[in-house]
Each structure stands twice: as structure tokens, then as C-alpha cells.
């Protein structure tokens, strides 16, 4: 199997998809279901779930997610008598699938050099690169918006198909909220698009080679320094998209329970896991756009690339990227357990009257600065 043939590309794509889902998305999302409870407990001076041990294997209670999965499997899969059966069955999948699909555009490491795996390959000397990104799409971020906005169907259809007033209300709230914050999110990313001149995530990440560089009009710096306002806007909108506190209006646990009120068993588990998958995906998009993807600054990158064999270099950088993503997931959990929730009208007010104008101003100012820098 030689480099560049169709068979090679298919095998590489399948391997990358398998890695993305089974080594990245699913484990992290599963661990987050436990981490959310454990971290919130630690923040609130409690201990949290620490004892779903398998024999002597306890590991601080990480195995709780296995116990949860097992519990979900053995629960009754209840469908309300008046519900629209087909849509009721499909809504959890509609809610979970977009997060998995969007992960295709995320670059998760430097390219592997096929044929030079165990040699030291300094930057740029790679003959047969295999990009660690499932799909190299030039429309990259547009694809992200297109697919992630489909997640609203999961919530809305679940609310509608359940034949329950509260679920319906949750579904309506979900659709209004997600559509409102979609606008801000797009505007926030527009700033990054202006700075880096591309929508392709790996191209954006590969420009952020320096953590903070004053040369080339800052264009080699991490996105957090070129687009600080954009980062805050994107973060806010991304949390609103995941429908978690402080933006948990669609779920509204103290009042309406939300669009999945009628769900039980593994179908509820899919909503639950889908929420955490969205956290992981939005964190990795944030890392890609604003924190340099897998880059840790030119000095560290070059040092490691010129001293480690290629496969080890890739492994180290992918792990470093994973740590970045994990820190962002933890940060989102921290926000979820620190801030009070908004009221529905306050949410709309924040989205349309505050964030959207600020994001438009951000785009205009960014464009003006770029224009000034190029003149």
C-alpha cells in the first residue's frame, strides 16, 4: 500500500475517524459526565461520586460513567402513548450526530510523515504528509456552522414529538436560543476569518505558530491575542449553543425540565452524551481558532520537531492538543457551576442587543485594523 493511492487514503481516513471517535470524542465526553459531578462537588466543598469501583479498581470514581451507561441500558425505553413515534425515536440521534460530524474538520496534530515515521523530520521537510484531520474542507468553519445548527432539530423535534406541553416549550426555547446565538457565533468567527484569511481550520491553526508575535501584524500569534473580543463572543455563544447554565433556558431544570422530559433510558443518555460531545467539539474549535490548535509556540514546536522522531513528535503534540481541549472542557464546566442562569427574555436581550452589536463592531474594527496594517 503506497502513499497517495485510493486504498491508502481510505485506510487513513478510517483510522483517523476511529481515532477521533473512540480515542477522543467518546472517552472525553464520557469522562466529562463524571467530571461534571466530581468537579462541581469539589467546587462546592463536597466529594462527589468516588466509588463505582470495579473490584479494587477505583480510580477516583472514573468508572461511574460505565455504571451510568449500564443503568441507561437496563432502563425502560418509554415512549409516551400520544407521541409521534418516529420523530421521538430519531430526535436523540439528531441531537447527538451533529457533534460527531463536526469533529471531522478539527485538526488534532501535526502531519504524520509517511515513510519517515521514525526519522527526525524538521518542519517543512515532510515528503509524504498525512494530515491529522479527517476532512480537509476549504469551507471548514461554514461546514461547522451548517452542521452544528442542525443540532437544533434534535431539541425541537424532541420537544414536538413528545406530546408534552413542557417538552414543547423547551423545544421552542431551544430553537429560538440556538438560532439567536448562531448569529453572534458566526460574527465572532468572521473576525478570525479576516485575520487569518481562510476558513480552513488546519490552515488557521498552522498560522498561529507563535504564542505572541509582534511581527507580520500579529498574524502569527494565537487567536486570543488577535481576536480577544471574538474569543469572548465565541465562548459565550458556544456555551449558549450547548444549552447549559447560564443559558439552560431550554432545559430549565427548576421549571420545565425541557425538551427531553419524556425521554428515558438510553435515549435520554444520548441527549446527555450529546451535550457533552458538543462541549468537547466547541472546546476543540475554540482551541483551533484562538489557541493555536496543536501549536505551543515556534520555539517548543521546532525544538521537539528537530529532536524527536516524527511519530513521537506527532504523539506529543496530539497529547498537548488534547490537554488544551480538556482544559477548555473543564473551564466550561467551571462556568456552568459558577454562574446563575438567565431568564428567557434576558437571554434574548443579551443575544440580540448586546452580543450581536458587539460582534459587528468587532468585525468592523478588525477589518479597519487589517486595512490600516496593509496600507
Amino acid at each position: 500500500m503506497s502513499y497517495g493511492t485510493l486504498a491508502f487514503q481510505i485506510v487513513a481516513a478510517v483510522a483517523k475517524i476511529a481515532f477521533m471517535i473512540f480515542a477522543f470524542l467518546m472517552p472525553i465526553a464520557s469522562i466529562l459526565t463524571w467530571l461534571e459531578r466530581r468537579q462541581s462537588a469539589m467546587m462546592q466543598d463536597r466529594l462527589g461520586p468516588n466509588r463505582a469501583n470495579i473490584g479494587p479498581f477505583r480510580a477516583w470514581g472514573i468508572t461511574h460513567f460505565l455504571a451510568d451507561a449500564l443503568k441507561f441500558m437496563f432502563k425502560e425505553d418509554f415512549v409516551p402513548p400520544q407521541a409521534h413515534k418516529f420523530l421521538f425515536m430519531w430526535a436523540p440521534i439528531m441531537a447527538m450526530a451533529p457533534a460527531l460530524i463536526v469533529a471531522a474538520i478539527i485538526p488534532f496534530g501535526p502531519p504524520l510523515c509517511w515513510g519517515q515515521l521514525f526519522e527526525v523530520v524538521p518542519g517543512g521537510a515532510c515528503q509524504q504528509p498525512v494530515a491529522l484531520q479527517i476532512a480537509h474542507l476549504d469551507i471548514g468553519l461554514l461546514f461547522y456552522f451548517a452542521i452544528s445548527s442542525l443540532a437544533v432539530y434534535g431539541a425541537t423535534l424532541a420537544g414536538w414529538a413528545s406530546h408534552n406541553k413542557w417538552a414543547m416549550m423547551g423545544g421552542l426555547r431551544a430553537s429560538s436560543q440556538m438560532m439567536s446565538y448562531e448569529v453572534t457565533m458566526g460574527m465572532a468567527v468572521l473576525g478570525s476569518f479576516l485575520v487569518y484569511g481562510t476558513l480552513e481550520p488546519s490552515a488557521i491553526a498552522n498560522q498561529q505558530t507563535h504564542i505572541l508575535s509582534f511581527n507580520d501584524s500579529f498574524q502569527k500569534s494565537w487567536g486570543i491575542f488577535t481576536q480577544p473580543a471574538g474569543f469572548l463572543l465565541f465562548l459565550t455563544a458556544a456555551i449558549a449553543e450547548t444549552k447549559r447554565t447560564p443559558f439552560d433556558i431550554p432545559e430549565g431544570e427548576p421549571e420545565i425540565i425541557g425538551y427531553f422530559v419524556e425521554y428515558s433510558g438510553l435515549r435520554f443518555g444520548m441527549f446527555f452524551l450529546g451535550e457533552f460531545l458538543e462541549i468537547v467539539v466547541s472546546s476543540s474549535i475554540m482551541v483551533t481558532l484562538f489557541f493555536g490548535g496543536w501549536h505551543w509556540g515556534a520555539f517548543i514546536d521546532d525544538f521537539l520537531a528537530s529532536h524527536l522522531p516524527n511519530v513521537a513528535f506527532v504523539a506529543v503534540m496530539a497529547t498537548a492538543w488534547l490537554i488544551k481541549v480538556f482544559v477548555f472542557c473543564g473551564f466550561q464546566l467551571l462556568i456552568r457551576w459558577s454562574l446563575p442562569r438567565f431568564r428567557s427574555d434576558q437571554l434574548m436581550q443579551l443575544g440580540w442587543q448586546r452580543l450581536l452589536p458587539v460582534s459587528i463592531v468587532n468585525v468592523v474594527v478588525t477589518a479597519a485594523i487589517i486595512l490600516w496594517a496593509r496600507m
Partner: protein
Amino acid sequence: MAVGVKVVTRPGSFSQQIYLPAIAEGLGITFRHFVKNFFGNLTGQRKRTDIQTIQYPEEKKAYPARHRGLHRLMVRDDGQTRCVACMMCPTVCPAHCITIVPEESPDGKIEKRPKIFEIDELRCVVCGLCAEACPCDAIRMDTLDHAKPVYKRGEAILDREELLERGVRSVAVQGGAGAFWRERVAGTPQTLPEAALLPGGPPAGPTPVETFAPRANASKPPGTAKE
């Protein structure tokens, strides 16, 4: 009738209206707690953390000294029960959980004693009236323990021997000792209740004398249980 409308002007400077400083402050507080508890817990120094959790089966919190709990029957100097089967406690019990069948005592000085003394801890409402009604200081609820969980209802019915197991010698003067008991007690000072509490310990007797020391299976200090 027009409804009065009161327009509330929200106070607050610009920095409050953009939320961000307050959010950063709040995140700082929660993150500080998280770091302190997380690393304290990881290094096994629970006492340095703020964690309030008591991990029940491994750690137990001692009940307060006046806690009413599992019953016990107190004993005389010679190890017999102090109970004289006067039927006060089953009479006063609002839950009818005490069953006493009296019998004649072989001891000439004692008229009656319980042949059967059973308490159904599942029916007991833990009101403490039985201990208050007892004229002999025979039944008490000061074991600082609660009724144990059982698999069968019958296991929750404690019989006389189980109740006596927890019993110790009471410092109260035993009633039913006949007339002129004060004079008899004065002639044998080693059985005086005060003597039992002397620093040198109680006089050698067949049964231990009640003390107010913590119960034997008192809780371990927090932090000893393995995380």
C-alpha cells in the same frame, strides 16, 4: 382602573453591566475552592480542605450525648436485669412495641423479673417515654446507636439477652430492695453509686458500671478513610 407601573432603574456602573468583572470574580472563587479541595484530596490531606462530606460506612459522625436510640436493659451488681417487670413501659409506649412476660424471680429479695422482654425496633417511634416511665432505671435509650438495618422484620425484634448485652450497671440505687434500703446501703459503702465513680475506678464487680465515655465503635476522625 389603571395599573400602577413602577419603573425600576437598575443600578450599576458599566463594569457591572457587562458582567465580565463579576463573572471573573465568581469563577475565581469557585476555582479557588476547586483547587484547594482537589489537591488536598489528591494528596490525602483532607483536613486541609473545606470538604464537608462524611463518607458514611467508613466514617461515622458521633451522635450527640443526649441522642435517643437503640434500647438497652441495665443490670444489677450481680448481672441480673434491673427490670422488675412492672409493665410501666409497655403501658406508656404509644407504638406498642414492648412485650413483657413477667415471671417470679428465684432471688428472694426480688419479686418479679421479665421472662420475656422484647422490643420491636421497627415499630418503635423513638419517643423515649419508656425510659422516662421506668421507675428502676432499667430501660434506657442512651446507647448512642440506631436500630440496625435488617433483612427480615423478625431480626429487628430485640429480645432480653440482646438488650442486656448493651446494658451496664446503673449508678442509680436499685428500687425494690425492700424497706430500710437506705440503711442497708449505708452499711455497705462499696455499692454506693458515688463509690463507683471514684477515680480509682469501680469496685470489682461482675459487671461494668456505666460511664459517659464514648461508645466503643465511635467514629474515626475524618480523613482516615481511604478516598
